């Protein structure tokens, strides 16, 4: 349970002051001073150590991630150059009823299918094929591939959407699926 005791306060202080030094370095020293950079990140890492010391590494790491993000947002907010709100300019733009071209719709559908179906099959088969090859404990390997599968799928989706020619990822993913299924089912 989070209770405000000395270590707790120390962890938050180290986190805040670490991010503060990083912010100071960014704002006024234009990221030129190595000392400020090292001390800033050092304090942030110290906060991680204190969090883990206090709550164990599982809770500590999570608390550290949250407090680091919140500290950074706090300094971003402090830095925000508030100006008088301008009226929305959206009304200045012309209103158009947009119809997508057939080619664009076709390309979007094809991309969607490659991302959602071909990538899914390729990544799932590849992860399971990898499982059959991995040395070590069965339980650990199964959990490893259960995490690897979504991660690979995310990378494949990124690749498919980033490329201009859909053919390259499509054929590569089909090849991966075929090779993996050979290993799995034969």
């Amino acid at each position, binding site marked *: 349970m989070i209770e405000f005791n000395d270590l707790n306060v120390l962890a938050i202080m180290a986190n805040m002051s670490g991010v503060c030094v990083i912010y100071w370095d960014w704002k006024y020293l234009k990221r030129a001073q190595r000392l400020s950079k090292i001390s800033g990140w050092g304090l942030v890492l110290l906060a991680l150590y204190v969090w883990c010391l206090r709550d164990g590494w*599982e*809770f500590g790491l999570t608390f550290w991630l949250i407090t680091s*993000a919140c500290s950074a947002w706090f300094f971003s907010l402090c830095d925000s*150059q508030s100006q008088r709100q301008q009226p929305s300019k959206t009304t200045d733009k012309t209103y158009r009823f947009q119809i997508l071209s057939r080619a664009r719709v076709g390309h979007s559908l094809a991309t969607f299918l490659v991302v959602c179906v071909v990538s899914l099959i390729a990544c799932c088969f590849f992860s399971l094929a990898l499982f059959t090859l991995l040395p070590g404990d069965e339980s650990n390997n199964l959990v490893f591939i259960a995490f690897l599968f979504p991660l690979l799928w995310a990378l494949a989706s990124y690749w498919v959407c980033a490329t201009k020619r859909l053919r390259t990822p499509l054929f590569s993913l089909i090849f991966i699926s075929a090779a993996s299924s050979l290993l799995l089912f034969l």
Partner: protein
Amino acid sequence: MSVKPSAALVKSSLSSHSWLGLSVALLMYLVCLSGALVVFFEEFERWEQPNIPEYVDYSPELISRAVDNFSQRVDSLAQSIYVVLPTEAVPRIHVSDGENEWFVNQDGSLNESPVEGWTYFLKELHINLHLPKMLGLIFVGILGVMLCALIISGLVAHPRIFKDAFKLRFGANKAKEQADLHNRLSVWGTPFYFMIGLTGAFIGLVSIIIAVGAFALYENDHEAMIAAVYGGDPVITTEAAPLNFKATLQSLSQVAPTAQPIYLVVHNLKKTGQFIEVAATLPQRLIYSEMYRFSSDGSFINQQGLSDGKAGRQIAYSVYRLHFGHFGGFAVKIFYGLMGLALTVISVTGINIWLAKRKHRSYLNDVWVACVWGTPLALSGAASAALVGQSAPISFLIILLGSISCCVIAKNEHRARQMLLASLGFSLLAIVGCYTVIHGTSDQHPVAFMLNIILSILGFGLLLMTLSRRRKYRESLIPPEITSL
């Protein structure tokens, strides 16, 4: 060696980021918003059913009476009966077999059943988007994958990540303001969002790996594959004997003195192979629980090894608490809620940037405003509807579709936003009004009282904000030479 990505890579990553973001924006927004709220589902459940007896102290005799009463109440005994024990977050006992469920009074008698009201609707919205269970779970899991893909593409597409580390320009220009907000909220929260995305994808998609893996490697035996990770059930062949919960809890305190029981399961009640499982949390551990097994007389059999077994097993059983933020008390819940809201804002600002960069407006602008501000309105409308006994999902759908129709007809984003914000303010106050009429003002449940206060403040705040924005908008429309007079 430079790690700076090439301009071509940045360009293609940005295109990938836009493509992925636009494809899943609305669903991502729904899942993020419902996820940020669902962190507090325990508080919402207590708010929704404030008349359930609450206590943290319980005796083994109470558990015994509750199980007896439950077995008498149901037509046929299920394979497992769950007795969920009180915690600080939910100081209520309920007993269930997965199909029937009742809260338990302090004397062991059964109280009313948990309602499938607004909180249930919210949980289902986050977990499976109200689609058929498994399909919805996989669908939401895919959104977890897309979140990871968005994070990866976003990081590669952001070469000024260090240069703009704290840059936040409010009010400068719509596109810049939205881009800064999007980048600052996302960059600093990246590790947390990545963890949420990956654990969400794991929870949603593990069934696919199990289905394909069992077919390919375990002769289609799903149980065998699951047992390989989590461990199997003990094989008990003895005849059923009277259950001794007192001895069970005493044995638990000897086996694991720091363990905090959260629920216990009676397997094969009054049948051959009857045994008791006690799920208990351990201090400073993210695992959902360790499962301790006892025979009917309370003697210790074994533990599942979720806390001290293989690393994979421990990791797999830690994803739930890590994803839902149910560890470390209420402060962690608040931070998880804030991080969830930040991710919701990131989803919204991503589309806002795209809309602001377009040279023209279209119905998409109006639909997006309606979805962004209509969803909280629909959620609050669903809460009021659930309070008066109406269907929360249907109310949600009607209000959301109504908001979209109104905004598309109005073709004025600013006015539509103001209208939806004001409606949301009124709707939040309406929830408090309905609640007060139904449950009264005197002797209100402390959690319900706090929630109603928060809802009232939010409601009034939104109404004041709408008025102030309206005035500012009107002032900004007056030419500068007139205002200077």
